[in-house]
């Protein structure tokens, strides 16, 4: 950039720009900050409202109650299990397809790709999908309903496909001469050098699994409740929280506060994960958007 003297409208613009962006940051962060401080406040006192900057009467009571709740700890377990198992299987399954169709010599490659792309524009809608999963595959009420229907994702496959295409061909060719088959090459050569793209896709999958409530609502039962679903029930009606609170000998006045503690616990893991993988996913968005 050339240096040049700035005139006053430009300076005003610079200042306004910083002010606007700072305001945006506050608007983004404050809601999160507010639930954290309110959840750390004494429940009876919090009911008076008006906690804006810091807890008035500090208390961990809300968190104690939430952690003692059995439904909560079970949902925690289910959510972690589906996030780990779902992410690992989906990344491998999608990568396998993407690697296969990245090879130009593969028979039927164009057809497979067409099949994948068509699904981005057409779908049967929610009801036929529900019927296939629940009535034909009998997956309703089974833990596998969280894993199997989410094994594959077209957008993620395209991101990986683009990445695999860019890998140098020489390494694979020399491995072939040494007698390695395609499975071995995929597993021992391609996957280890594809860590950035695998991390991106893993993050997308993990976020999806952690935040999923819709499939839990459609296909789950009491044993398969996820954190988000509990949160949803708590938000949509305060009765559950009041019940949870009264079971534990607390007044219904803390319903609101328990809700906040649940919100914080449910969200913290994802918020803490994302700075670590941030450097990867921007790349992912850009590759993914090429094909729309």
């Amino acid at each position, binding site marked *: 950039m050339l240096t040049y003297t700035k005139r006053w409208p430009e300076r005003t613009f610079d200042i306004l720009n910083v002010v606007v962006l700072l305001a945006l940051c506050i608007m983004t962060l404050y809601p999160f900050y507010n*639930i954290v401080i309110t959840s750390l406040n004494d429940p009876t006192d919090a009911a008076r409202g008006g906690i804006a900057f810091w807890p008035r009467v500090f208390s961990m009571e809300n968190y104690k109650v939430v952690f003692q709740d059995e439904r909560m700890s079970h949902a925690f377990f289910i959510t972690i299990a589906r996030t780990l198992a779902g992410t690992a299987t989906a990344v491998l399954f999608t990568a396998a397809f993407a690697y296969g169709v990245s090879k130009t010599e593969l028979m039927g490659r164009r057809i497979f790709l067409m099949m994948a792309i068509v699904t981005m524009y057409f779908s049967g809608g929610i009801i036929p999908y529900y019927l296939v999963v629940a009535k034909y595959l009998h997956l309703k009420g089974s833990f596998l309903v969280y894993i199997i229907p989410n094994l594959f994702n077209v957008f993620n496959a395209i991101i990986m496909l683009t990445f695999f295409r860019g890998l140098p061909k020489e390494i694979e060719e020399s491995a072939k001469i040494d007698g390695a088959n395609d499975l071995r090459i995929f597993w021992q050569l391609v996957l280890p050098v594809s860590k950035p793209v695998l991390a991106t896709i893993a993050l997308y999958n993990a976020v999806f699994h952690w935040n999923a409530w819709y499939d839990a609502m459609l296909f789950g039962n009491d044993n398969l409740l996820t954190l988000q679903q509990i949160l949803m029930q708590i938000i949509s009606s305060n009765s559950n929280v009041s019940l949870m609170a009264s079971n534990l000998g607390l007044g219904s006045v803390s319903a609101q506060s328990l809700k906040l503690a649940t919100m914080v616990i449910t969200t913290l893991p994802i918020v803490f994960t*994302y700075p670590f993988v941030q450097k990867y996913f921007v790349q992912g968005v850009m590759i993914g958007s090429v094909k729309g």
Partner: protein
Amino acid sequence: MSSLPSKRFWQQRYLMLLTLPAVLWMIIFNYIPMYGVIISFKEYTPFQGFLHSPWTGLANFRELFNDPTFTDSLVNTFKISIAKLVFGFPAPIILSILLNEVVFKRFKRIVQSLTYLPYFVSWVLVVGLMYTLLDPETGVISKMLVSTGIIGSDTMMMGSPHTFLTLVVFTEIWKNIGWNSIIYLAAIAGIDPQLYEAAIVDGAGRFRRIWHITLPSLKPTIIILLILSVGGLINSNFDQMYLMQNSMTQDAANVLSVYSYKTGLVIGRFSYGTAIGLFQSIVAFVLMYIANYSSRKITKESLF
């Protein structure tokens, strides 16, 4: 190349082993449900399934077009989608331009990273945040709005059909602005810096450079994303709508996807619900086709 298909297949057996499971998965989870759409022309019963349920022709669609709730949900869908398009679409473009003009690169990075954050939390949490912050008795934001006189002290923000649309658009922007700006920032990063230098030499100020260099360079990206959003006009986010509805805002939140879910899966009218879904998909595709066609004619940019 001249080898027999069977021999070629055998040579590629391991590649096929990697590829075919996903193809099979697509058939089961994408193509069979697509075929299952035929139940919108049938009266589906669980025992007879997709194949053997009795045909009813267009009966479901005739009922649909005479159903006032359907008409209402169609109007709601368009109202919400158009509001999101008008206010939500330009937001990330503006953000990316503002970010590009920031002099301190570290500040730019911090703002960027912070604004991605809401994209990663669930709609369940976002709606929970709204209920908390907008609670008429304890909510910090509603108290602030009351004390500045923007709303009356008796306003229930989450329980009024009048504020509903504003909240829908606002949360949509709040959740996605940072994430959606990534693609525009990438496009801006690809602009040749010499263009800006030449403009500075010619005496162009900040605003002229934004207007004559940054915006025109973003045009192809803007158009492609606009076509895609027009296609999505009718698919107003199910998560957001379903979670934001309550007994007071039900009428405003009843969009096609929610209506399809409720009639099809909650009440159990599978065929009728599927007909709503099919109607929705067809309109979405037609809208995208029209947007793509007009864009190709007017600006020479198109998706397909």
